[in-house]
């Protein structure tokens, strides 16, 4: 009895000794910075940065000075704090958000057959390429909602996903999951989007969906900024978000109502005591909404102004501000 106690006790003591020495000799000191950086990262482990999760990305940021700021979910303020922690400047890309390019709701887009099966768009896509009459439209079973790590996309009552702009971090998980490739990432301040990706001819399209793009090209022709690109594949034109000034002319001209604007930009006014009458704004305005005499004070015709902001950017005296701003 006593022998056993000594033998087992002795083995235990020896093992503890070896482990204790090993723990001291081979200890790996974690960089405390890693924990601090990890605290600042969103912690959703969405994988958009290309690393296995937030911890792996924090490790890479601290250990490898060449690691770019690949996290799409941090805002500029947090990125600044991470920069100061690391002691190096990080380039932060402008925030992106998911944009769902289909407006074919339950009421406006028809079905070819009734689908019975798993409620996952990818599974529904396996059955004859999806039950919707339009081969490109949103299937509406909510795979994007299910995969979103930020709870930023919800299925609306009309059967289409709605992106919660405040929560969406542009990680792109939904973009990869959507079997129809409808979702793309756009800059967060891009507010105009043509919400259709159908390559069908206008005739086929009209049979399948009440609202889809019929490629009439009215929007392309009306755009004063040349911001709507015609693609080679014969599909709907795509809005170049870098060139778009959100004047919403295309929104008004679209006969199908498939171009969407989230928030109409504020119109502009001219601060009288700053205006020197240089006439640059008059020349630059695509809508002929600014008038006045050189050397005098120019005025904005609010009925004509569409808030594109070209004049705001060009004014050398910062004399043009948005209506509502000081």
């Amino acid at each position: 009895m006593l022998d056993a106690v000594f033998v087992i006790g002795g083995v235990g003591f020896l093992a503890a000794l070896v482990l204790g020495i090993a723990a001291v000799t081979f200890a790996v000191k974690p960089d405390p910075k890693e924990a601090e950086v990890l605290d600042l990262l969103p912690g959703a482990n969405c994988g958009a940065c290309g690393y296995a999760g937030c911890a792996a990305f924090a490790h890479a940021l601290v250990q490898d000075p060449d690691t770019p700021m690949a996290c799409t979910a941090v805002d500029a303020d947090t990125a600044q704090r991470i920069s100061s922690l690391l002691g190096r400047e990080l380039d932060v890309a402008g925030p992106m958000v998911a944009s769902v390019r289909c407006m074919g709701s339950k009421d406006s887009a028809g079905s070819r057959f009734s689908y019975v099966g798993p409620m996952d768009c990818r599974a529904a896509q396996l059955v004859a390429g999806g039950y919707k009459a339009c081969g490109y439209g949103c299937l509406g079973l909510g795979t994007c909602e299910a995969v979103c790590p930020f709870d930023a996309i919800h299925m609306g009552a009309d059967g289409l996903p709605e992106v919660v702009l405040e929560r969406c971090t542009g990680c792109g998980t939904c973009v990869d999951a959507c079997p129809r490739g409808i979702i793309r990432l756009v800059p967060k301040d891009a507010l105009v989007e043509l919400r259709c990706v159908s390559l069908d001819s206008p005739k086929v399209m009209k049979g399948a969906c009440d609202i889809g793009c019929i490629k009439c090209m009215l929007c392309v022709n009306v755009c004063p900024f040349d911001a709507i690109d015609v693609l080679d594949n014969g599909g709907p034109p795509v809005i170049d978000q870098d060139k778009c000034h959100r004047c919403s002319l295309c929104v008004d001209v679209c006969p199908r109502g498939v171009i969407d604007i989230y928030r109409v930009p504020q119109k502009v006014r001219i601060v009288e005591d700053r205006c020197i009458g240089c006439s640059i704004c008059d020349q630059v305005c695509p809508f002929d909404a600014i008038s006045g005499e050189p050397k005098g004070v120019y005025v904005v015709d609010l009925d004509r102004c569409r808030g594109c902001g070209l004049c705001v950017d060009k004014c050398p005296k910062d004399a043009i501000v948005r209506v509502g701003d000081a």
Partner: protein
Amino acid sequence: MLSFRGGIHPPGMKHLVRDRAIVDMPLVPLYRVLVQQHIGAPAKPLVKAGDTVKRGQMLSEPLGFVSASVHAPTSGKVRGVENCINPVTGLGSPCVVIEADGEDAWAEGIPFDVDPFSMDGSELISRIRSSGIVGMGGATFPSHVKLSPPRDKPIDAFIVNGVECEPYLGADHRLMLEEPQRIVLGARLVMHILGLSVAVVAIEANKLDAVEVMRKNAPGSIRVEVLDVKYPQGAEKQLIKAILDREVPPGGLPMDVGALVHNAGTCAAIWDACSRGIPLIERVTSVTGSGIREPKNIRVRVGTPLRDVIDFCGGLQEDASKVIFGGPMMGIAQYSMDVPVTKGTSGILVLRSREVDRSSYTSCISCGRCVDACPMGLLPNVLSRLGERSMWEDALEYNLMDCIECGSCAYVCPAYRPIVHFIKHMKALAREASAKKRQAV
């Protein structure tokens, strides 16, 4: 009686067409011959709009070894290579549309009469290949590929599959009763090609009349085996297990265990191709189910639109609700009446609305019935729960890819879970991921 582990016993429903002799379906004005009617590499159309074609003329050229050509079902004018719905995928697919001229004139040189037993194996295989023969049980795997095993995998056992375990279907049954000689001669040709001295014809015990006929017609070298009536007895791997007591390894092919299985209809087509030069342009199929007015076994040309077949069989009952190509277990529901009959259309089943269950599924209650039913020894309960969450990586650990999609699990599930659909969904995700990986490397 010989059988395998697992499986289910759905109602056979074979009585609808059991006693109906095969009738030839008359010519129709328009044929849509899909270019892709096989598993494997695509084929390239050889004709264009305005061409005149003769019955049996080759319409497409296979691109690759695992591929098959298609042939004109009748003589006429090509309207064009158009986009038609493929009944298997449900997607648009190129097909040669032929306006029949009604003369049904054969292409030059066929049919002829030769003794194929005087030819050697490679010549016969190339003839089978140019005749566009594919597995007619429904999987449509090109037959010449099965007949060309690599040197290190010699085939020592050949099974003619006359099991027809899908409920409702009776086309192979009628073919065995009415034209046993074509099947036997085709089987003997396969034996000749592979240098085999014996073969087995496998038939389920619900077709004892066919067993008798085949025994009468088969020479001593071909044995007829009677199998337990159980679904999926006709599945290749289950058949090999039952007859030869050999197990095809996971991810493997029958040739890995030295076995070859050909459907009875395929054997008949092989005989026609080799002895008379007739390519695969028609097949026997059962048009059945309570939703069709006159169930029939018909000999129909490949490319015949579904609408014409339905009309020939008296039309649909008023409350017909679902049209399925194939049987009720593994068949594919159709959403258009314009789809054409293909080489793999083993049956056309029409169900009435009261026979179609559209109830939604509920949570898995872990009853384990699917585990008992699975003929592959998988765990469908685990797979279906993983499928609900799209967890295909975990499902691979549970041998996801070994599922033969027979539907036995979904048939017995008391929660009406679409288990096979979950599994297909995960298989698609896994294939997509491995394709992406391959691209990245």
